[in-house]
């Protein structure tokens, strides 16, 4: 018996979410008095996982699994679960993890709870707290199957360092029919993505036009942040759809979310509510966002943002 965790990597480097799910797996393993086994795909150096509580790493190196494939990855993880006789499987809330988890659940006859924000409140019955109603409520969910799958919300549990080291061994699962073939990947490089960002700077219709996004990008650059936008802005074509955050766009769960010229429609707030600290800058003090944010400035973005950039640059220079 052990806890198995799927630790995602990108070109061999582990993502922050991988270290977060490893931290979560360690906590569950401690609750259950067992150890943590991680499974990795095409990652050479897995030593960092030991620092977050992983005891053993199963390394899959397979050219057929060079790009993510939900069937292939789910099948490999299922084989690892059976080999290790794992009773709990931990995955993240990344697009890939959410893609494979239901397939894995069917393969293992396992119950699956997604968007989990805390360590299990009980391991028997196995009960977790997850978000529901698009972050407007929490749902305590019991998983009643022998094998359980927990999808951990991004940025909810945090990192827990552990002074340990992980042993590594090669693992060669059989590869099923993949069914879905990746023809091309179109991924931004050298830019912080909304999914991975600690800070997101988001602009709304209050910015009046796409030509005014320079200051949004500059502010994001100073903060090492990703840029995002409200739905009207993407509908108007001022910014690409991939930047649209909100209920029908991308979800945001960053540490800091800065909304500039966004009134805060309920659909927008639903998508960004999981962010820890929210700052709003808007001329209209009646804008609904002021009820949802932690810090606010009632003022003109065209005056406030350049000043903020200048002050932040000075602040960063001192750090």
């Amino acid at each position: 018996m052990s806890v198995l965790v799927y630790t995602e990597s990108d070109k061999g480097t582990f993502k922050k979410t991988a270290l977060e799910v490893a931290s979560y797996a360690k906590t569950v393993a401690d609750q259950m008095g067992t150890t943590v086994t991680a499974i990795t795909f095409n990652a050479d150096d897995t030593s960092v996982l030991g620092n977050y509580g992983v005891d053993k790493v199963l390394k899959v190196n397979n050219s057929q699994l060079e790009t993510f494939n939900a069937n292939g990855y789910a099948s490999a993880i299922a084989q690892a679960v059976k080999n290790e006789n794992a009773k709990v499987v931990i995955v993240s809330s990344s697009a890939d993890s959410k893609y494979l988890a239901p397939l894995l659940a069917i393969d293992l006859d396992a119950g699956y709870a997604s968007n989990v924000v805390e360590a299990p409140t009980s391991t028997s019955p196995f009960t977790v707290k997850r978000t529901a109603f698009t972050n407007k409520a929490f749902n305590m969910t019991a998983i009643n199957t022998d094998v359980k799958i927990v999808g951990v919300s991004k940025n909810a549990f945090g990192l827990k360092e552990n002074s340990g080291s992980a042993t590594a061994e090669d693992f060669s699962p059989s590869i099923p029919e993949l069914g879905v073939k990746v023809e091309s990947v179109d991924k931004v490089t050298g830019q912080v993505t909304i999914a991975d960002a600690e800070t997101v700077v988001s602009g709304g219709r209050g910015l009046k036009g796409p030509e005014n996004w320079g200051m949004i990008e500059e502010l994001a650059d100073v903060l090492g942040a990703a840029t995002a936008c409200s739905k009207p802005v993407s509908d108007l074509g001022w910014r690409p759809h991939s930047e649209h955050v909100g209920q029908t766009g991308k979800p945001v769960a960053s540490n800091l979310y800065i909304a500039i010229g966004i009134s805060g429609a309920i659909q927008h707030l639903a998508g960004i509510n999981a962010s820890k600290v929210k700052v709003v800058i808007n001329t209209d003090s009646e804008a609904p966002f002021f009820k949802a944010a932690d810090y606010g400035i009632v003022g003109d973005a065209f005056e406030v943002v350049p000043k903020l950039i200048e002050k932040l640059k000075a602040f960063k220079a001192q750090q």
Partner: protein
Amino acid sequence: MKILVCISHVPDTTSKINFTEGDTKFDTNGVQFVINPNDEFGLTRAMWFKEKQGASVDVVNVGGPETEPTLRKALAIGADGAIRVNTPATDGFAVAQQLAKVVQDGGYDLVIAGRESIDYNGGMVPGMLAGLIKANFVTNCISLEVDGTNAKAIREIDGGKETVSTSLPLVIGGQKGLVEESDLRIPNMRGIMMARQKPLKVVEPMDANTETASVKFEKPAPKGAIKLIDPDNIDELINLLHNEAKVI
């Protein structure tokens, strides 16, 4: 091509979220229900396949009689027929099993569901359904073309998108992008009248087991009041973000 569109019956986004019966049940009092937004993008894409490629389109919901107005709305938008599996939607696995039975009985080639419902946000039904019926599966799908039995889809990934090729039978977890917001259709009077004549078949559920159980709901702790900062005192904002919130 026979298409089945899975329709979740969900509270409108602007609904107040409250719970009853010792916080174990969602309080539907005064709540308006709608087609789950992610499903509506899929339904609208299905209409395109119907009009351009001669596909037939049925819609399905697993739920009690209270979901029928939502299915009628889907018929008014243009679906040919509706199926309601007469059982409450208990957990994702139970719903996926009921849907698998509908797909197998109806011989559907393409199932379009939403990537997740906006109420429980489980995001598991489409994938579980695909696993149960051994169909191909693409989720977070923002574009879908079908040519014969071959399909080409675009999936949104973290930080970009990927184009994939696959084949029918296929299950899609759809979202905005399958069609745009401006393509969504508001049922007109003719559609609403026609929907009354279209078949809405109620089928009894199969024996399905659950894997998870909702124990209780909780509402987030009330948020503290916002701290307003004078636009002429930006240093104060930086100070608060650094020393109080500790996010920069």
